């Protein structure tokens, strides 16, 4: 699965994008976040304030209980501040 990061989440992870193998036990976005946190310290720090993170699957906003099966791309970012 392709994973993308934006704004301060991107800065903390230290990369814009990566491709990961999603373990079989990952069902929801929350599971995916728990898995990403286990990759290294940068990921753990990026997802420290979990409630502050917004998620999109295949470019649609979703909540953390959304199922990841079938999604090609997940994106993680802070609340939006455009306009």
């Amino acid at each position, binding site marked *: 699965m392709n994973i*993308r990061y934006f704004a*301060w989440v991107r800065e903390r992870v230290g990369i814009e994008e990566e491709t990961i193998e999603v373990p079989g036990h990952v069902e929801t976005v929350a599971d995916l976040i728990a898995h990403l946190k286990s990759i290294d310290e940068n990921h753990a720090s990026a997802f420290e304030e979990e409630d502050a993170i917004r998620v*999109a699957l295949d*470019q649609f906003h979703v909540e953390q209980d959304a199922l990841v099966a079938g999604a090609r791309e997940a994106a993680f970012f802070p609340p*939006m501040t*455009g306009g």
Partner: protein
Amino acid sequence: MTITPRVRVQLENFDAAEESLRLSAGRLDVGAIVTFTGLCRDEAGTLSALELEHYPGMAEAELNRISTEAAERWPLTGLTVIHRYGRIAPGENIVLVVAASSHRRAAFEAADFLMDFLKTRAPFWKKEHFISGKEGSWVDAKAGDDSDAARW
């Protein structure tokens, strides 16, 4: 029949007058055009620029979803949304919404709705860069933006 909104996510500046004219030129059924322009503001004189990061693809898709919802909700004759990205200096344009309708209420409301949802749902993030050279900082989302969007 609902109109097809015109959505652009671009580096370049835009011309609000030109975009407004585009929605009225050559037609006689437009009775009201509301244009909203959001600019890069520097209240304290400390900002050198805002850096607008966006999620390419989703930014366009989300603006299209919000615009289509507005076009279904109000009887519009035209709707344009332009959001810039990249480095934007104080005084420069950031975002433009132009809503045209036969009557004023639909145009005012659609433009207001568009901005409220754009702020909370369109994937753009602002980072402030300062004249002093101190480290740039990401702008925090405002709780008021969520309550504004909840009005609709």
